[in-house]
């Protein structure tokens, strides 16, 4: 079953994929940090969509689409267009390169992410494993 990105169902599927990833469990064993991912309004997406991920020691403890006000103050905020997220999920764009070239905008300490590049790769692989459709398809 294909899930629309970004949507609550996709985020749930992503959380499940992440928690099922043996590679991520190992590579992110020491990771502590939560995120807002923001898919900015552009192209087929009329409004920005924000989702929250709480990543802790190789597990995704919480994940949801943020509707309205949210009481979280995550350590990281990553923002990009639908197109950029899609390129990353489809392995056409390396996530670290996307950060370095600022196609993805980061609020937070890139140094901490750069110390966990394998975990970043495994996170992207988990996202890529979700059968995904995109707005406008």
């Amino acid at each position: 079953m294909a899930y629309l990105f970004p949507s609550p169902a996709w985020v749930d599927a992503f959380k499940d994929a992440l928690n099922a990833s043996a590679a991520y469990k190992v590579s992110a064993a020491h990771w502590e940090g939560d995120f807002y991912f923001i898919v900015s309004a552009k192209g087929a997406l009329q409004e920005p969509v924000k989702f929250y991920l709480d990543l802790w020691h190789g597990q995704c403890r919480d994940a949801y689409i943020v509707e309205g006000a949210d009481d979280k103050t995550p350590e990281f905020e990553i923002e990009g267009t639908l197109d950029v997220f899609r390129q990353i999920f489809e392995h056409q764009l390396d996530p670290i390169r996307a950060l370095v070239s600022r196609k993805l905008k980061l609020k937070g300490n890139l140094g901490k992410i750069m110390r966990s590049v394998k975990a970043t790769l495994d996170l992207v692989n988990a996202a890529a494993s979700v059968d995904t459709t995109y707005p406008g398809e």
Partner: protein
Amino acid sequence: MWFFDCPEIIYGADALSHLEELKGERAFIVTDPVLHRLGYTERIAARLAEAGIAVASFTEVEPEPSLQTVRRGAEQMRGFQPDWIIGLGGGSAMDAAKAMWVLYERPDLQPDEISPMVDLNIGKLARLIAIPTTAGTGSEVTWATVLTDLSDGRKLSLGSRETLPTLAIVDPALTAQLPPRVTVDTGLDALTHAVEGYIATFHNDYTDGLCLKAMQLVFTYLPRAFADGSDEEAREHMANAATIAGLGFINSWASLAHAMGHAFGGHFKVPHGRSVSLFLPYTLEYMAQASYESRFGDLAHALRLAVDYTEEAASAAAVIAAIRDLHRQLGQPLTAAEIGIDRDRYEATLTSLCEFAEGDGTFISGMRVPERDDLRRLFLAVYDGGVVDW
């Protein structure tokens, strides 16, 4: 979309004389105590005096410079207010100078915040000149900075494209006195940059030719520079090779040998070039199990190896054998055991080595990215020369 970054490069015999034409008021030289004792700071200062530029220096950069050293140097820099900063030395001094440059202009930042995501807005108070005294790191033309955090011994691969030196002065005379072992350690660092820059997933049309040329130069001239340090032609071509390889890998990327070498070198205090080149043949064997278009064929062809370049597996084997032969010819260790690392100590640190390697910025740029089990096997293979055919 990607970028090709390159400073202005002044190279060749007497390139240092360019310093006499410099416009400015105050220059701050960042170097290490050995070079300072050997009179290198004075050589640069004399050139700057010809340009009417006042000089101060920080001469305490240690091998594998620490965050703490960088903070100290930047503080001294702020007291002098230079409009030129000069990184003089091997990669350590030049890397330290880049980081000090940032902290000099941005005292609000910590060294480990130097990243492409942060607008540094430097270059308003000073510009950076990088003058290599070894032929290997390529740091004179890169924006990469490797620092060590003394709190946990971890090497941090930092960088911002804004820390690219304004000028690189590559004068081969500065490498003439390099001891043979340093010549080899640094020269094989250049080789590792060239080869990894060519096979990294980020390889591109702009860097391929640079990487191949640098590799050819190392194979031709490093044995000569090692055998006879006074061979000026060899020294000049090795100086060029290191700079060209630096341009190649910084605009492509380094790969698994660097990730593993950084982890290993940080743990066991092994020089950077010796560390990364130790891992190169093994990581290439590992990579060669993946599909590689014509990458290894191209390398074999560039080295004029007696192999069918259209056969990737055969080409890979020939290239790896040639690299091992070069190591042997230069008396360079091919296993961690040969470096003198105790096996029990090595095995006891395996998990930590894996974690540090996985956290290195170069870890994921190979065409084959190892999972933890493979990574452990690779580290073990490097210990005693195991064959990587899996």
